[in-house]
């Protein structure tokens, strides 16, 4: 296989990993938008908090280095639960305090409030945790596997497995339970759903439990993968996840998953190929720009996304 082929496949693997993370964040955006037609700008910050909470918990457990499997799983499980709990609780509170009063207000007000919440969360974290990045304890003893020239780490496999598991669980929840049915009904048509006896507020609150929980999980995985957490990580990740959500079709849950994976892969391939194609003129620092360009392209050419948007009334 040619070296370009290997590069592409390698980037495919890398891209799927980051793509999974984007997908988890995108799901949160998509679900909230499907139900409220509101872009929860603060979602990126809930993602960020998942990472910080995890680091705090690991610090509390005094875990700084590679740990045996049993303890590793237990600790990570605790981190997941902790992070999800914090983000979900915040999500519910934010919805109740900042978004619900404006549910029927002008178009601009909720957007500005969401922006405000995002700023508050980001800056509070900065003030509490400091401006300098936090480092994620190296508890995962890295192991690499090689398949025909392509390197995959056990960490990547872990991320892929966990993310897939969460997405499968979500799929089951949304499509096979009454609970999920309520969410889909509210997303489709709020008025009719409430006339059918579905409690609007409770259903919407539950979306603000699930979405941020997935975001927090993504934050933990992100931080685990890259080894750092920083208070602005929600900003760029947020835009990218939004791109993924729109790419797949806003409000469309499978769409968010597909969009996330696709974006991750596109971004990774782009970052790998860009320096080659431009002979070093444009380097990997343009990776973010690449994602932004995808966003703009999707908005301009196919704002309903690849799989169609699902937004109700």
């Amino acid at each position, binding site marked *: 296989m040619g070296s370009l082929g290997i590069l592409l496949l390698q980037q495919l693997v890398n891209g799927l990993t980051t793509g999974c993370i984007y997908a988890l964040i995108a799901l949160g955006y998509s679900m909230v938008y499907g139900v409220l037609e509101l872009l929860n700008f603060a979602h990126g910050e809930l993602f960020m908090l998942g990472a910080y909470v995890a680091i705090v918990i690991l610090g509390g457990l005094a875990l700084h280095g590679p740990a045996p499997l049993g303890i590793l799983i237990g600790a990570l499980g605790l981190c997941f639960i902790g992070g999800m709990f914090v983000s979900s609780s915040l999500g519910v509170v934010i919805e109740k305090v900042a978004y619900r009063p404006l549910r*029927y207000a002008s178009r601009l007000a909720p957007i500005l*409030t969401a922006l405000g*919440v995002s700023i508050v969360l980001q800056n509070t974290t900065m003030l509490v945790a400091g401006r300098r990045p936090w480092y994620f304890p190296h508890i995962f003893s890295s192991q690499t596997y090689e398949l025909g020239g392509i390197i995959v780490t056990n960490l990547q496999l872990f991320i892929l497995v966990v993310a897939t598991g969460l997405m499968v669980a979500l799929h089951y929840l949304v499509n096979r339970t009454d609970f999920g049915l309520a969410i889909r009904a509210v997303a489709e048509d709020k008025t009719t759903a409430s006339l059918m006896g579905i409690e609007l507020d409770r259903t919407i609150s539950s979306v603000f439990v699930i979405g941020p929980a997935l975001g927090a999980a993504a934050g933990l995985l992100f931080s685990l993968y890259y080894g750092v957490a920083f208070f602005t990580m929600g900003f760029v990740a947020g835009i990218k996840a939004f791109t993924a959500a729109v790419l797949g079709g806003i409000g469309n849950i499978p769409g968010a998953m597909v969009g996330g994976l696709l974006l991750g892969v596109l971004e990774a391939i782009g970052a790998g190929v860009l320096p080659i194609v431009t002979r070093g003129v444009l380097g990997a620092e343009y990776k973010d720009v690449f994602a932004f360009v995808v966003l703009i392209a999707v908005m301009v050419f196919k704002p309903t996304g690849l799989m169609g948007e699902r937004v109700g009334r």
Partner: protein
Amino acid sequence: MGRPRLNGFRQRRWVALVVAGLLVLPAGIRDIYMIRVLDLAGLYVLLALGLNIVVGYAGLLDLGYVAFYAVGAYLYALLASPQFGFHLPFLLVFVLGGGLAALAGVLIGYPTLRLRGDYLAIVTMAFGEIVRILMNNLDSLTNGPQGIMQIDELGLFGYHFNTPLRIYYLVLLLCALSVTLVRNLERSKIGRAWAAIREDEEAARGMGLNTRNLKLLAFAMGATTAGVAGVIFAGLQQFVSPESFTFWESILILCMVVLGGMGSIPGVIVGSVVLVVLPEFLRTYEDYRMLFFGLALIVMMLLRPEGLWPSRRRGRELHESRVTPAAGAGGAG
């Protein structure tokens, strides 16, 4: 066309008083640093007036406004500094900067203004970030993160604006000009058309309004204002770097408009001045500045979305608690 709040005479007397006060204000200030602060405040008034056209009048949420500011500033930095050895006159670059920013506004606006509010917000945010990343990485052109230094002073026909005081009067003049032009716009048929678009864009189209062009116009005018403000900024600071053009700048200007009063000229002016001058007196709390802005945004939207000094019309629009959703382009039947 808004109904004048005070009748013509009284309003003109107030304005004359304020203008007179502003003209003699520097005499009562010892500290040259404070005059610099006022220069900056005036610059932000210009920026806020421009964004007010986009957000306040046309109802378009532009979160990447700072990109146009950067365009103007970097244009002057590139054409009037040792960077490439060009030293074009200020007036020329002033016009070029405005024009280039307007062009950028049209280019960005054309494909995006038809998107709905929240999408437009994110797309403009993305554009703003792209511009900043480009400024940061095109080292050969913009000197990257180090920025461009030793930019020429602003000069007009041999007269140099090289002290904070002189710049103060230049900025004051430009603000007065902008306020007049923007006010004329607001009370014209174009201002009325923008109000109609805010109310119900579909119905506005049905009444023969070319909503796309009207939105583009607002966007381009906002961009032009930011562009010329950028030129002034570069000449005032004599140094530019990507640091001054982050997303947070866009948010700051947005806060000035929102907190002061969307669509309200006095509101926007008050918003800018307060948000520039107040932090100067609260230097010890500098770290809490953005946090305060975020909280202020939330509180304002919940309690007083029309701002501190609102325009009457916007106040009415924003306080509709249960808006009857327009039933598409007519209902069933």
